[in-house]
């Protein structure tokens, strides 16, 4: 009979080994599916890689996927460190994009640097606000943040659809419900052929690494995340830190929205976030709360998505297959966490004779 016991501690190498084995197992399982569909798994995986890095154009696509995913994951991680299950990244991204678009559409005459800065600030503020609202209720009334932030996502999407079909509808689009494109002054510049979102990603990764690991605020965040009781006992202003962190969390996602609207879509659409907010949650969780892993995991996911998109035409494998693979990888990652936290023993079983007792009283 197998028995489960909690591990006291585990070496970094062993835990990394377990986790990587998990992901590899997922890929192996997927290979069986591919074989069942009559495809050569190696060719498919190879094509996925080629689809991401094979040409500069494809590489750029991959990076353009990685940037918003990783940035949003950074933001989400800050919230998760506070044990605030923020699943509202999707809505925060959209609202940030909406705010930036508002600036872009209403002040197109401003010089480019000014306009872009204003757009960025707008994205930060409104995205931050979108996270701040559920946060305030959590802090004051312990309202469940998982569900609150979720509902905020739907409100955000519906609101953008409303704008798209209504007040911001482009009169020049011949009846097609679409928001006008931004002027050139509202498009963020490129560096080395990719929009400067990548510079922002690097900068913010470094900034947050330093913030969380070296500063007083970062220390407070980790203590509060582990034990609010202890934090209060140590004299920390828990509410202030929580609200500030959650605002930052939403703000970063809002900035992602601005980057997507300005650098990728060139306008605002309701599909701008496209599920990225949810995928970013998973990227954050897989990064095991370590900032430095976020770009790496983000890249891996971008490869998954971009590769899947590429092989869709090459091998006639539908988009939903990528979702299946994502799901399988996640299940294995979740499952392998078990082996990191617990060990299994076997104990010898001997004959069990049970004495069945009647009622205690006659």
């Amino acid at each position, binding site marked *: 009979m197998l028995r489960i016991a909690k591990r006291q501690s585990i070496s970094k190498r062993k835990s990394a080994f377990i986790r990587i084995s998990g992901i590899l197992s997922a890929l192996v399982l997927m290979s069986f599916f591919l074989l069942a569909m009559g495809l050569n798994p190696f060719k498919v995986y190879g094509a996925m890689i080629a689809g991401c890095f094979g040409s500069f154009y494809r590489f750029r696509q991959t990076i353009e996927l990685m940037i918003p995913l990783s940035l949003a994951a950074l933001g989400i991680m800050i919230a998760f460190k506070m044990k605030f299950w923020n699943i509202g990244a999707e809505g925060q991204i959209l609202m940030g994009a909406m705010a930036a678009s508002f600036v872009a559409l209403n002040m197109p005459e401003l010089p480019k640097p000014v306009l872009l800065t204003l757009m960025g600030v707008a994205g930060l503020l409104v995205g931050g606000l979108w996270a701040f609202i559920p946060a305030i209720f959590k802090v004051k009334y312990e309202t469940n943040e998982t569900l*609150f932030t979720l*509902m905020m996502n739907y409100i955000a999407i519906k*609101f953008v*659809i409303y704008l798209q079909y209504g007040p911001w509808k482009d009169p020049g689009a011949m009846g097609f419900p679409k928001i006008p494109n931004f002027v050139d002054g509202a498009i963020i510049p490129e560096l080395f052929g990719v929009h400067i979102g990548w510079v922002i990603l690097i900068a913010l990764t470094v900034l947050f690494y330093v913030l969380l690991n070296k500063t007083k605020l970062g220390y407070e965040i980790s203590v509060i995340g582990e034990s609010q009781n202890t934090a209060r006992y140590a004299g920390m202003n828990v509410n202030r830190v929580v609200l500030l962190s959650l605002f930052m969390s939403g703000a970063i996602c809002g900035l992602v929205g601005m980057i997507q609207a300005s650098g990728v879509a060139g306008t605002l659409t309701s599909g701008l976030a496209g599920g990225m907010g*949810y995928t970013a949650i998973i990227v954050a969780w897989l990064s095991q709360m370590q900032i430095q892993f976020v770009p790496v995991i983000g890249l891996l996911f971008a490869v998954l998505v971009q590769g899947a998109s590429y092989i869709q035409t090459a091998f006639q494998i539908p988009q939903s297959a990528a979702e299946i693979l994502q799901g399988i990888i996640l299940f294995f990652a979740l*499952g392998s966490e078990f082996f990191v936290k617990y060990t299994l023993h076997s104990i010898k079983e001997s004959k069990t004779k049970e004495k069945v007792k009647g009622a205690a009283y006659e």
Partner: protein
Amino acid sequence: MSSLLFFSAAVQAGTPLLFATLGEILTEKSGNLNLGVEGLMLIGAVAGFAAGMATQSVILAILFAAIAGAAAGCLYAFLTVTLRANQVVTGLSLTIFGTGVSGFAGKYLMGLVLPESMKAVFVNFRVPLLGSIPVLGDVFFNQNVFVYFGYLLAIGMGLYLSYSRYGLNLRTVGENPYAADASGIQVSTYKYVHIMIGSAISALGGAYLSLVYVPAWQENVTAGRGWIAVALVIFAMWSPYKAILGAFLFGGLDIIGFRIQSMDIAISQYLIDMTPYLVTILVLIMNSVFKKRDQAPGALSVSYFREER
């Protein structure tokens, strides 16, 4: 007259929500939070429709949808109960997986139409006696058999939870698994069984959409209803009876857009689309501000491990 039709339509629109909510209530009563309801509904929708097309039998279609839901629930249970994985992330993963699987399988079902013989099963009929009650009879008791099944299920679940031994044991597991274990209740077994049954019920909500309500398979046929159900569980305060009320209320809000348009009110349909979510937020806030005795199962979303030291 048109009001009665509206309310009657609200009941129809609320039925998938009711099934999804009832299923999640059962799961949460066992102490597990499953955010994968949307995925379960999609799995149920595609499985039910596929089985229906393949067998031309309503019973088999529903059965297959339930089994598919139970299988997905089993996967979720394995991860969260046996492997003690993080329930929030597992639920989200289930949604992604369910969306993928249903989209993949559904590719072959696009554009297909159910045979008339199957559609005929879901024709409205009046319940004798109850259907003759003015107003209420027209709204609630002149529906199709799937809707009636929903009422029975809700009432049955309510009785089960309040008055049966198994229901009591389940509630104990969800409130305090240590107490349950010490009382000799097999915590894992209870969780597995009720998560699987709950998942099957939620999947039936999806099957209702593809077999009765639309009826057809479309990508994203559930349109976020699974997420609303998660909120509805709280709105209903984990009570199957209140879930009936909540589901029909939200069903009504869902379709109110069309009604308002035809009444020439100058509010954009899209703004009205937002109302169910705004209302749920309001409920969330009200529940937490006016804190009555906690209705959430005490050990919700906590993994249980006997030898905690």
